[in-house]
């Protein structure tokens, strides 16, 4: 049984003041040490990452790896007001990582099995990438990338995203919330993820989820993509989506070709506020994506981005679970079946 070694990271007299220090100190052979190394960030102040941090070099396997996350109560995902806080980058509500350095990849998961969770990123420079994944077992869970970055929120060569959101606010370039690239056959997996671009932004529009090259077959399941209709669209540049791609939703005319995809939805009907200045991408009551997904306990553990219990029958599409009256479970069948009855 591997030993878990947890270190605190932050500017308030922690084990390490910065993520780069923790990363270099734990770049070791974790298999021979028989350890999991967990870096727990504290919201003492915003983490200025500049050129970014790469988790690369450590020897890892399925049970011995590095995990960068937040300490209990330090994330937007477990903030006391998490259910009412607008879903957008706000470092006052939880650990925030920021980079405005040209060309930087803020978090780069290069070694296999490394993972991140519960982090917010504010990414604001040209050619910036929020989180990049290089290996099959890299993963991000419950992460938020927001900003005027001009590349990609999540850049997935191989790896998995669960309950993540990319908020694309660039106006000058065709930016993608989630980009899939390089490797073929089901190498990129996104489950219950959301890509949005504020509805009032002018300028060039990119795509929510987009393939970089032909021949890729990424899997997108229970994912939402809104605000990209003037560009490449919600789900773009993939000829054949991976097996299991379904239950996705978008305001564009097409999604992943899953039998249960919802297309041509009205953006403003889905989220609390889609306008740049007051953006809030919590799902609102009466949205089309509420109760429109399919259960994926394996990947989501029936939880959403802030730890709310998902419906075990018809969860909400995207990273946020709409829970009526603070409850959970159950769920109406209105959106799934009324269209078939000819009711809009």
């Amino acid at each position, binding site marked *: 049984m591997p030993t878990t070694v947890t*270190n605190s*990271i932050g*500017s308030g*007299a*922690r*084990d*390490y*003041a*910065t993520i*780069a*220090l923790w990363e*270099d*100190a734990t*770049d*070791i*052979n974790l298999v*021979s040490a028989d350890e999991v190394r967990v870096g727990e960030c504290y919201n003492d102040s915003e983490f200025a990452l*500049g*050129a*970014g941090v*790469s988790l*690369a*070099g450590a*020897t890892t396997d399925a049970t011995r790896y590095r995990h960068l996350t937040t300490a209990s109560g330090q994330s937007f995902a477990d903030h006391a007001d998490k259910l009412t806080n607008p879903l957008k980058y706000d470092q006052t509500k939880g650990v925030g990582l920021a980079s405005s350095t040209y*060309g*930087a*990849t803020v978090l*780069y998961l*290069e070694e296999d099995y490394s993972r991140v969770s519960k982090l917010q990123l504010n990414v604001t420079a040209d050619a910036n*990438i929020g989180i*990049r994944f*290089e290996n099959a077992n890299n993963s991000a869970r419950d992460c938020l990338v927001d900003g005027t970055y001009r590349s990609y929120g999540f*850049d997935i060569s191989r790896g998995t995203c669960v309950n993540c959101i990319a908020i694309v606010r660039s106006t000058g370039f065709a930016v993608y919330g989630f980009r899939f*690239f*390089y490797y073929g056959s089901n190498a990129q997996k996104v489950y219950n993820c959301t890509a949005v671009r504020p509805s009032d932004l002018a300028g060039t529009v990119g795509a929510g989820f987009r393939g970089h090259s032909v021949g890729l077959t990424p899997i997108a399941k229970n994912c939402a993509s809104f605000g990209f209709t003037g560009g490449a669209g919600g789900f773009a540049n993939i000829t054949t989506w991976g097996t299991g791609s379904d239950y996705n939703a978008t305001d564009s005319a097409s999604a992943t070709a899953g039998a249960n995809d919802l297309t041509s939805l009205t953006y403003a009907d889905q989220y609390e506020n889609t306008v740049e200045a007051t953006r809030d991408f919590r799902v609102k009551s009466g949205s089309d994506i509420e109760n429109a997904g399919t259960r994926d306990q394996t990947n989501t553990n029936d939880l959403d981005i802030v730890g709310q219990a998902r419906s075990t029958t018809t969860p909400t599409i995207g990273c946020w679970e709409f829970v009526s009256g603070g409850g959970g479970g159950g769920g109406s069948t209105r959106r799934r079946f009324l269209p078939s009855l000819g009711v809009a």
Partner: protein
Amino acid sequence: MAEFVIRVRERRDFDPVRQAASLRPGDVVDIGPDGFDWGALTMTNSDWRIVKCPGLSVDALLDMLAVATDANAKLLLKRAKAFDIENLLLKTEIDKLGQVITFEGAQKHTALLALKLTKQLQITVG
């Protein structure tokens, strides 16, 4: 107004293949402002030194954090530059074994900055 943490020793069990991109002796781990609290474990890590340069701007050191990537933004090196720690200016201070090294005054800052080296990338084709 800067100080920085520099790796001064090869990590234990260094693997040149698996850790080809990792920080090596002479690489800057991170940069902070004067008086930065680096954390308890930084103060006891014998692989590192804290170099204090009171009066030197952080901007003068930021290039030491730049990574080297290929055309597809794939990581090649976590640091594209390093300090020449074999130069006596640094080596003498590192060999004193104190955790904190101080370079005070514009003349010493200039001498320190002159020790920046750009790494040569070895590219294998085929």
